[in-house]
């Protein structure tokens, strides 16, 4: 794994306006509230957090499906926001997405071959049909789908097979970065492990970089090299997999880890149960956003926003305890 930074996210923000009546003050959902991290070439960066923490929005911001309010996304040394529409299209090829729900992410009225050929038609208009079909067959085969299925429609496949098709589509443009948004969350465990293995193998074969977004910490631990934990639109801890799972620093990370039910009845969960629910992202707490649920909250936490600081080579945390 080289240490070349492939993508660098700098203080990216995205606030969605809430539609309110004229008379009320305009409110915003602070989906992503200034996050910075970078992903190195060939590594898998896991982004975890609970629902509403902004992890999916982050993926879409990087991919350009949503435009950020402020901040920079630097891909291969180029700030994506500064690109023209045409240049952007060339960069689009280099990052592709895999979505959570394989039942909803494939056009229901298109045949598998058309779904897979579409990206080629868009980006390589001069490619011959024969060439396209060959590329499709080749890639489907690598993803474990036989070429007999080329003329079938998505509804004729199981969830696992559809996810394989989605992966093949994401790979067809030979991207460098794959953003996988909850890519295995909708699948049964036995299928989930097949897909995870497939993704790992493809990563080796094509030298891919993954941004793996998931709420499932066990899956993230399995696939990632480094992990970022998000809470209410902010990154609160970024560390190597070893550091974060063996020695989590942020109280939120700790409680998140303690909450995972372990598939082993002899391990009794240490109950650091968090009080209460996640506050609304339209009206987050002041200071450290976690202070309302934090078992170790101090006075300073209510007032001052903690900044991300480097604890060592592998670990960064945003918490007043450190």
């Amino acid at each position, binding site marked *: 794994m080289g240490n070349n930074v492939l993508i660098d996210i700098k203080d990216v923000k995205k606030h969605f306006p809430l539609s309110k009546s004229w008379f009320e003050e305009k409110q915003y959902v602070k989906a992503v509230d200034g996050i910075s991290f970078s992903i190195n070439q060939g590594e898998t960066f896991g982004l975890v957090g609970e629902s509403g923490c902004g992890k999916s929005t982050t993926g879409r911001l990087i991919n350009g499906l949503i435009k950020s309010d402020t901040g920079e996304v630097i891909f291969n040394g180029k700030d994506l926001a500064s690109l023209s529409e045409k240049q952007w299209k060339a960069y689009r090829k280099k990052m592709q997405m895999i979505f959570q729900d394989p039942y909803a992410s494939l056009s*229901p009225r298109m045949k598998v071959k058309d779904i897979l050929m*579409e990206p080629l038609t868009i980006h390589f208009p001069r490619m011959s049909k024969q060439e396209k079909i060959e590329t499709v067959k080749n890639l489907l085969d690598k993803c474990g789908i036989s070429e007999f299925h080329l003329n079938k*429609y998505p509804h004729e496949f199981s969830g696992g097979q559809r996810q394989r098709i989605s992966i093949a589509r994401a790979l067809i443009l030979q991207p460098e970065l794959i953003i996988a948004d909850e890519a295995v969350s909708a699948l049964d465990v036995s299928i989930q492990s097949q897909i995870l293995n497939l993704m790992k193998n493809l990563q080796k074969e094509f030298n891919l970089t993954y941004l793996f977004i998931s709420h499932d910490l066990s899956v993230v631990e399995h696939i990632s090299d480094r992990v970022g934990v998000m809470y209410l639109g902010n990154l609160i801890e970024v560390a190597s997999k070893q550091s974060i799972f063996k020695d989590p620093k942020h109280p939120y990370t700790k409680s998140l880890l303690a909450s995972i039910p372990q598939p082993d009845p002899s391990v009794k969960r240490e109950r650091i149960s968090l009080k209460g629910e996640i506050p609304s992202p339209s009206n987050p707490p002041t200071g450290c956003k976690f202070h309302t649920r934090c078992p170790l909250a101090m006075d300073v936490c209510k007032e001052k926003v903690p900044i991300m600081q480097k604890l060592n080579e592998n670990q960064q945390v945003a918490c007043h305890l450190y």
Partner: protein
Amino acid sequence: MMSKLQIETSTMEIPKVKSENRFLNFWRQFRKKKPALFSLYFVFLLLLTMVIGPHIVPYDPAEPNYNRLLEFPTLDHLFGTDEYGRDILSRIIVGARITLSVSVSAVLLGTVVGTVLGLVSGFFGKWVDKAIMRICDVLFAFPDLILAIGIVAILGPGVRNVIIAVAFFNIPSFARIVRGATLEVKEMLFVESARSVGASTTRIVWKHIFPETIPVIIVYFTMNVGTAILSAASLSFLGLGADPSSSDWGAMLSMSRDYIGSSFHLVFFPGLVIFLTVLAFNLLGDGLRDVLDPKTND
């Protein structure tokens, strides 16, 4: 308690019957809707009549026979004769062509324009949507027939202008329906995933969204043909449509209204075929909706 224990079927493990062929699958379900199935047969019969009608008529529909004026139905003339002694059955058979082609082409025109407007309106939203929808609201505000009369009054009577008039008031209903479907489809994940591979707006609308709205369009197309037949007939009845001497069903009704007291059959038979045709198209539309677009049904 029971009401609260509603079950979301999507979470359940119901075995899906998968068919390799979409059409076969559709046909299997459609076959069970008996009224719609019979309507389909009736519509086929009408279409057949349109094609071969002029070759199978027992009498020349335009040939007057002053010996047999206003005759009640007999074995010779199953539907009787009109005020010029023309065979009513033959006139109805021949009239199918003009009546149906006017209404079908009118609805087709309305569908095409309405669909494009609906797709644009639903996909782009914002002011485009607002503008298109407000225009549709204005069109909706007029009763269909008044609008059509107005248009024909401006353009002048005649078959072509009836088609335009009827098409015109089909536009807003299609625009709205397609816009609704577009709004729904636009939010689906596959649209976002198409965008993530770099698909252009045109491609997304045309290749990903439009195909999803086709079932709804088919359903409403069928239903609107029924209404369009009525409207075209009404315009003819008012003397704004087809040439009164032609065998258009509406024109037939119009011409025979003077005899309604003495020779009831003159009005009855054209009226009956209009009624049956409209009913058939509506029932067919209903059946298609049940199968193609189950959501709007519940």
